[in-house]
């Protein structure tokens, strides 16, 4: 496909969506729903995409994608409402925004903060979209170097890195939950020799543990219990005046926008870690490299831009490995993968051959979603903020019901509920003990991939481990894994300190 054709497909996609009233309705509706999901503390982008996935089952693939991308983009953006107005981030990815946004709101600049956030999020999404278009074909071409060995290493790396980064405590805790997820993924008949493993003779476990109920249980139930237990009192939201798209401010912050967008895309593209980490890393980098680090934490616009651009550009980043290799770049992208599979789309290097123009179509939807988000954000910020006054005790039971329906709706299996609820209770206690949950879910998602590919690779090499060292991509991945592991051990840190002292 040449450039002109690509542009043609891009615009015909955009046109086909905006010329269809029902698709437009879905676009704006799901974006608004996303913003509400994001704004309400306790509801996350992942949960939003998860709950919507089952509802899109009967839609056409295009309509489903519009709905899912809309809620994804909206939810990542909507998290900032709670951060700015209440100092309670609606989603983890907006936690950094709270550090700057809330002080601004206290100063009576809530409108300015919201306007800035809205524009920054839209810009971030658009930058992310550009990267999807440019990099997906490149990575897909690179994916031709990926055989079973490389896929095993990549999946393993995904579990390891999400464990190392997402843990507030020690990395080992992240790895422990990651490997717990890996273990859960082993349940069921194995994919290669159809041998039942850990099924305890239960028929329902034969096909393995389904990801969607695990996801809903792991992200939904602990949130519900926690929010209800804490009896979170809703603070009186700060007053908003006018929400001006601060174009002058945007001009001043071009440098931060570009840097944050790159960080967001880069982190999004790493399997298994998502918007929250992108926002923190970008915020941290902005603070470190800023001329006025002392202004951070006092309601500084640079900080908001850094956090909000990064978390939204992360969406595009997360789509790159998803579309090119079938590996989700973030937890919500993992849900998207499930949704794509439901619609008979198999992301991977063959995607562009089997469904030419699919990647372009996705980026067109991303662009429209970011615009819809901007419009809805500008028009409705004042109204959506009112939602924050709804006490959690009222909406959490609704969420609980949605969790139940969401898990059951997939395949209409009551067994999914027996899976989802214990998983939720388990993860609640794990969270309380400081074990991070994302690595567990990533472990469940990437576990079967790691397992099947390792054993398939050994079948291909007829039992030899040599390809780990002789295949260049495999060797690089192996070295990265070894480094990630070693650099997080005490010996390495002591050694490093010693070397530094000598030098």
């Amino acid at each position, binding site marked *: 496909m040449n450039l002109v054709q690509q542009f043609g497909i891009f615009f015909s996609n955009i046109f086909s969506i905006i010329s269809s009233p029902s698709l437009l309705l879905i676009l704006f509706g799901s974006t608004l729903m996303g913003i509400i999901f994001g704004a309400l503390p306790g509801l996350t982008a992942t949960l939003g995409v998860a709950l919507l996935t089952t509802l899109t089952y009967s839609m056409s693939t295009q309509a489903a994608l519009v709905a899912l991308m809309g809620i994804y983009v909206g939810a990542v953006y909507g998290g900032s409402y709670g951060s700015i107005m209440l100092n309670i981030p609606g989603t983890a990815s907006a936690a950094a925004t709270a550090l700057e946004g809330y002080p601004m709101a206290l100063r009576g600049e809530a409108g300015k903060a919201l306007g800035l956030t809205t524009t920054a999020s839209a810009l971030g999404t658009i930058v992310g979209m550009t990267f999807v278009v440019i990099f997906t074909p490149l990575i897909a071409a690179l994916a031709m170097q990926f055989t079973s060995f490389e896929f095993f290493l990549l999946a393993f790396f995904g579990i390891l890195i999400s464990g190392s980064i997402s843990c507030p405590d020690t990395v080992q805790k992240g790895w422990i939950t990651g490997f717990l997820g890996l273990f859960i993924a082993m349940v069921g008949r194995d*994919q290669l020799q159809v041998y039942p493993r850990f099924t305890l003779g239960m028929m329902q476990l034969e096909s393995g543990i389904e990801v969607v109920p695990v996801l809903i249980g792991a992200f939904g139930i602990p949130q519900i219990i926690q929010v209800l237990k804490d009896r979170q009192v809703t603070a009186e939201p700060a007053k908003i005046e006018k929400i001006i798209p601060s174009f002058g401010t945007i001009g001043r912050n071009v440098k931060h926008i570009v840097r944050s967008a790159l960080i967001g895309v880069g982190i999004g593209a790493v399997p298994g870690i998502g918007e929250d980490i992108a926002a923190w890393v970008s915020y941290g980098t902005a603070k470190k490299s800023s001329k006025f680090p002392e202004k951070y934490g006092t309601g500084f616009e640079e900080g908001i831009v850094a956090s909000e651009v990064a978390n939204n550009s992360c969406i595009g980043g997360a789509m790159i490995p998803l579309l090119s290799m079938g590996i989700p770049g973030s937890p919500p992208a993992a849900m998207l993968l499930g949704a794509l599979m439901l619609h008979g789309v198999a992301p991977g290097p063959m995607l562009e051959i089997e469904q030419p123009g699919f990647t372009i179509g996705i980026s067109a939807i991303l662009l429209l979603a970011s615009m819809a988000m901007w419009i809805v954000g500008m028009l409705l910020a004042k109204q959506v903020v009112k939602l924050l006054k709804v006490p959690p005790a009222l909406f959490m039971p609704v969420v609980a019901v949605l969790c139940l329906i969401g898990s059951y709706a997939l395949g209409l299996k009551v067994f999914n509920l027996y899976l989802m609820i214990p998983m939720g209770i388990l993860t609640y206690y794990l969270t309380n003990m400081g074990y991070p949950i994302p690595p567990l879910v990533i472990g469940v998602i990437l576990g079967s991939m790691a397992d099947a590919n390792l054993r398939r690779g050994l079948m291909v090499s007829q039992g030899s481990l040599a390809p780990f060292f002789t295949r260049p991509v495999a060797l690089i991945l192996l070295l990265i894994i070894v480094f990630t592991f070693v650099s997080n051990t005490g010996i390495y840190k002591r050694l490093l300190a010693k070397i530094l002292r000598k030098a």
Partner: protein
Amino acid sequence: MKRILLMLIVLVVALGFVSAQAEVEYPARDITNILVWGAGGGTDTANRLVMAEMAKELGVNVNVNNVTGGVGGSVGMYEAFAKPADGYTLCGLSESVVTAAVQGGFGNRMNVWDFFIIGGSPDLVSVTPNAPYNTIAELVEAAKKNPKSIRAGSSAAGSIHHLNLLAFEKGSGAQFNFIPYDSSAASQNAAMTGEVTLVITSVQEQAELLKAGKLRPLGMLIPEDFDFMGKKIPSAFKAYPGLSEYLPLEQQIGFAIRKDAPEAVKTKLQQAFKVAMTADPIKKFGAERYFTLKGLVGKEANDIFDKLESVFSWTLWDLGAAKVNPQTLGIPR
């Protein structure tokens, strides 16, 4: 007590009404097709198209209702089988349902059904473009010289494509190193990366890669040659007549009716089906999906499913993937 009595009366009246209905010429009301796979899939699309054509012929609507789940479509099949054998319930299905019984999801053999076969996309053997084999004979001879040296990819163990590979090995005497993948698409990916040299999947699945010259077709695993976009893909049966003992094992998309349904009803459906198969939308669908349109009914169709049942069940049993011994079900080997 009164209420129970009332209910009984209602029931009797209703039954009388139904039996009175049955005397009216079939079909007197809408027909339901309980389809065991999801909406939008190959079986679903084919069934919906054929049902729409048959509806014109029969003069009543045929509603397609997807009832998925279980093993080998067992939930939908069970539901369709539990309905009366009056011809008002059909069961949309494909070849994979024959595994439901040995997997413990369906208590009967396939001979409780009468099948209507719409068709399916046949399997073929293809190799990567840089492989040194230009004909099926070159491939088989190389594999015979060095057994298990050539890596062959297909979808999971026990799938239709894996069974085709096994049959191809038995019929030709070659032995390959079988590498299972999660799906046909994944096995074709692996051919692109060079992890496997040959793949066995259906024409429909390989179509885009064949068009792009990324796979080289060597032979069809059906007795006839296949016309792919004006180019002839020869049948592997020519070089290895022994294949006819084990093959063909084709994808068979269609629907079924309970065998104990009245003959008159079956005849009526078969006539409508034959007419439907000649309709333009069906032909267009067949060409788009690289289907061989069959339009088989009665004994011909039932024999095909009998054979599929035997091969699938015993292969799964031998692989250790079956729960129920095919012998206890009376499935001949």
